[in-house]
């Protein structure tokens, strides 16, 4: 179909005038969706007619507010004519009674349903919670077993660290797995570090005294069993723990040396 011929036929002017049959109008509508130039043509025809008809209107600004109040109510044009003829009363009454009973039953059923749904929800939440607890217990157990194995392993060197001047009551233990270049630190005997401070672990060689940083214990407070794992590939002769500002220090602050211990073989 040639769109220009279609436009020039004058059918769109009739479309806007409302002169087409339902089928023809539907056709124009479908064509407009496919050909934007048709829609544009229709909009222009419409705009021209709107302007022309508007120019006939008496010049009076009738605000939307004057009809706004009539929009909420049900249609006001035309009276509602009751079609009800007086019927036998018992039919009315029994009808209403049946409706009330049905409505009551329905409400009761809905209530029951929502109550049951709530119960299911509660039970399912409890189940989730228990599963989480079980999972936590399992992983705790596995971790503990693992630690026990490490401590029992005869190739692991056990070094007790004694409390020093800064914290005479403190103590700690280092379990050094030389094969794996790893140390496990049991820090249960250290007090919680004050805000802004962390424990820093040092590997020491004694002659001359040379400290090597093994790392800081950043999650001391959060950790439950106070067992920490660090890398240690040094030929350590002793281990020390100092309290340092968060982030750790280049070299140990000796006044804040909490615990210290040397290898038994030395």
């Amino acid at each position, binding site marked *: 179909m040639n769109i220009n011929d279609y436009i020039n036929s004058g059918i769109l002017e009739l479309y806007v*005038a409302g002169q087409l049959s339902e089928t023809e109008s539907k056709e124009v509508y479908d064509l407009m969706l496919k050909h934007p130039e048709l829609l544009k043509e229709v909009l222009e025809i419409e705009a021209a007619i709107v302007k022309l008809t508007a120019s006939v209107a008496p010049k*009076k600004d009738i605000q939307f507010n004057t009809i706004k109040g009539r929009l909420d109510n049900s249609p006001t044009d035309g009276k509602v004519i009751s079609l009800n003829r007086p019927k036998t009363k018992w039919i009315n009454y029994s009808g209403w009674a049946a409706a009330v009973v049905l409505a009551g039953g329905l409400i009761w059923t809905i209530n029951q349903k929502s109550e049951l749904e709530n119960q299911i929800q509660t039970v399912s939440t409890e189940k989730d919670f228990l599963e989480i607890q079980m999972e936590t217990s399992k992983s705790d157990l596995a971790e503990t077993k693992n630690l026990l194995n490490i401590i029992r392993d005869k190739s692991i060197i056990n070094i007790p660290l004694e409390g020093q001047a800064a914290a005479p009551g403190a103590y700690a233990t280092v379990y050094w797995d030389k094969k794996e270049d790893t140390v496990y630190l049991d820090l249960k005997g250290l007090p919680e570090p004050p805000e802004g401070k962390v424990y820093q672990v040092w590997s020491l060689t004694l002659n001359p005294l040379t400290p090597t940083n093994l790392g800081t214990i950043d999650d001391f407070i959060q950790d439950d069993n106070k067992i920490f794992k660090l890398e240690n590939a040094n030929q350590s002769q002793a281990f020390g723990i100092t309290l340092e500002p968060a982030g750790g220090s280049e070299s140990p602050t000796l006044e804040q040396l909490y615990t210290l211990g040397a290898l038994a073989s030395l």
Partner: protein
Amino acid sequence: MDLDNLVIQFKNKDVKAFEKLYNMYRDSMHGVIYNIVRDHAIAEEVMQDVFVKAWHKSDSYDVKKGRFFTWLINIARNAAIDKTRSKSFKNEGKNLNSDYFVDIIQSQDSLDDSTDAIGIKKFVDKLAKKCIEVIELLYFKGFTQKEASEELNMPIGTIKTRNRNCIKELREAVL
């Protein structure tokens, strides 16, 4: 132009959208109605009724069946014609002359000097009588093509092409 969206929102009973449509078409409907009833107070009342009615029967508008404007102007014409047939209208002794809409435009003393008004006045002044008649019947009065062809004693095909040419001139004058 999101006219389509406005109409969709209107069908969803969105008062804000309806207010916009009201402001777009208020004068147009007022003009169509006034051209039929030729009475200021009645035209105002009918115009307001038409919009209230459109609001309450928004469900009956189907975009596939025609333009929103077309739907609205139909309600307006019918409401105005109903009014002229009502008892109260006849009792007031209104006599409807057969003047065309152009007479109203030409006699508008308060016609402002906006570009629209000037354009329309020019258009109306130079408009051939046949154009005036066709537009009057098809748009203002809602005659069918067949009724218009009988009224004007003109073949249906001629009505169609003549209408096209007349609207073309109108568009040149006002758009």
